[in-house]
């Protein structure tokens, strides 16, 4: 639905030119909750602004349903934005804010009124319709910003870290609310966040960005279980990195030799990697201390950290690397290891992902 093809943005200010977007290509599907995830300064806002029309890309094309957007000014693009700062009009009431887009589209006033009422209902702000925007709380402002952007029924809604200013509890509520709104309205959401948990819980697909580039695109499970490269594995969740030797790949499976000399099978990177030294990523909860089937990595237990729902075991592997495991706590049973014990980390077959770099 939105096709972003080879978009680059090079800022040429007073200083040296700065490449904020470096040949970004992505297709966002109809009715999708699509998330741009990445560390601060990676170009998420810049990409959003390119779609909204506030920044002209240096190269590349942005198309919406086949129509080229780049030549259109922001006010001709059927795309609305929820700004990070909300940017509510301070001289208007809640209802007037929500009506603004419809008025600019010259809708008949009866229709405007009906839509505004409906939007107020949708974000549960009906009792506050006539308040000034300075007289409502941060969470309410956020909902008004959302309603204002949704009211003209855009084809795409762009949301720039709309939840980052909210406290934890409200953020959880709003996450559910956003998901509800997205499925009720059927509008495509392009959502920017640097909170990986938020991205994993809300998105249909995630694009992980770094330094002006999209590093990986995929569903939350895909990104989490099969990170393509070290940056993605590191940025999303916790990961152990092991230096191993790749012996051969066959389809989705890679045969590797662990530092302990044991050979095992793990997942191969999608785009193929030549045999030789590679990095293996293993999630802390995917390995086990309790033995069982799989490749064994002997070591010494260096630290045990209790987290309530689970316990983290820090193991110094023979050979020097540090490996962190996470095991869920069961009621009543104590963990059977203490610091200084010789333990064995076991990787079940198929656990672990060979990274592309």
């Amino acid at each position, binding site marked *: 639905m939105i096709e972003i093809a080879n978009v680059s943005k090079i800022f040429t200010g007073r200083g040296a030119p700065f490449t904020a977007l470096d040949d970004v290509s992505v297709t966002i599907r109809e009715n999708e909750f699509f998330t741009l995830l990445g560390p601060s300064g990676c170009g998420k806002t810049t990409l959003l602004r390119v779609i909204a029309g506030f920044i002209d890309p240096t190269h590349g094309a942005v198309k919406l349903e086949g129509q080229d957007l780049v030549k259109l000014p922001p006010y001709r693009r059927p795309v609305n934005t929820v700004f990070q700062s909300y940017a509510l009009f301070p*001289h208007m009431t809640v209802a007037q804010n929500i009506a603004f887009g419809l008025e600019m589209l010259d809708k008949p006033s009866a229709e405007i009124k009906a839509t505004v009422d409906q939007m107020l209902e949708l974000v549960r702000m009906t009792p506050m319709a006539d308040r000034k925007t300075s007289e409502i709380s941060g969470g309410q402002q956020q909902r008004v910003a959302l309603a*204002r952007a949704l009211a003209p029924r855009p084809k795409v809604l762009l949301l720039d870290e709309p939840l980052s200013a909210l406290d934890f509890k409200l953020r959880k509520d709003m996450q559910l609310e956003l998901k509800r709104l997205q499925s009720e309205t059927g509008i495509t959401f392009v959502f920017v966040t640097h909170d990986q948990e938020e991205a994993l819980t809300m998105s249909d697909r995630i694009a992980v960005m770094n330094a002006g580039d999209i590093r990986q695109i995929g569903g939350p499970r895909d990104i989490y279980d099969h990170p393509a490269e070290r940056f993605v594995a590191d940025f999303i969740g916790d990961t152990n990195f092991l230096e191993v030797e790749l012996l051969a790949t066959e389809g989705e499976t890679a045969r590797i030799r662990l530092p302990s000399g044991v050979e095992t099978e793990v997942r191969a990177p999608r785009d193929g990697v030549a045999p030789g030294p590679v990095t293996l990523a293993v999630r802390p909860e995917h390995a086990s201390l309790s033995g069982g089937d799989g490749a064994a990595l002997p070591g010494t237990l260096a630290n045990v950290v209790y987290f309530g729902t689970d316990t983290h075991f820090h193991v110094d592997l023979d050979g020097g690397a540090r490996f962190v495991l996470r095991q869920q706590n069961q009621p009543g049973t104590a963990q059977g290891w203490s610091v200084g014990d010789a333990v064995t980390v076991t990787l079940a077959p198929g656990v672990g992902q060979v990274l592309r770099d």
Partner: protein
Amino acid sequence: MAKGFDIRRQTGFATIAMACFVILYLPIVLLVVYSFNAGTSVAIWEGFSWRWYVSAWDNDQVQAATVRSLVIAFWATLIATTCAVLAALATTRQGSFRGYTLIFAMINQPLMVPEIVTAVALLIFFAMIKVATGYTGLFYLIIAHSAFCLPFAYMPIRARLQGMDLSLEHAAMDLYGTPWRVFRRVTLPQLWPGILAGAMLAFVISLDDVVITEFVKSAGQDTLPTYMLGQLRRVVTPEVNAISTALLAISVVMVMGFFFLSRTKK
């Protein structure tokens, strides 16, 4: 921690401050007081009376000069403020562009070029036009006043614009507002205090100008300040005090309005 340099703790600070205030305000206080003098002297107090206000009010020349002053100030304010709004928009909403500093300096030129130079230049320039066209109306004064009022109107408007959140205008544009409608519905409503403040300042500046007016005016085009200047060359009566006090009152109200407006937040 050391307190650092505090000017208020220096010896003689209080004395100097007091001296400054006395020098600044005592003459004005005396001027106001003597405007109520019953006698004809501006130096010897002979009792309270409104007579000089009455006499000023009844003076045809004063009336004509007052009307002229107000007409000029009104049009000059209107023109200068309109130009100032456009100039402020162009210098705050376009990003930086080549020649920005030059434009900025040119807008503020009346603040930097000595007034007498502007006055002489305008005198010569307008004289040429007067010869060419034969027109000798108030228009010259209005244009001259508009020009030197411009930076005074420009400054508060620009300050207001710079303090305004650009994302509001982006949001309005994002919601299908064309540039003109964005300006009218979002920028202008928030800019009003700045515009009013600029207009008031321009009005006061126009009202009390002497130098440029003196040079540019044709015969019989006295404004209130130039009329007073003319009076001083002959006999000085407290009538001048009365007019000054009235002007002072207007200015104080305007300037207070200006401070009040520039303080109000969006």
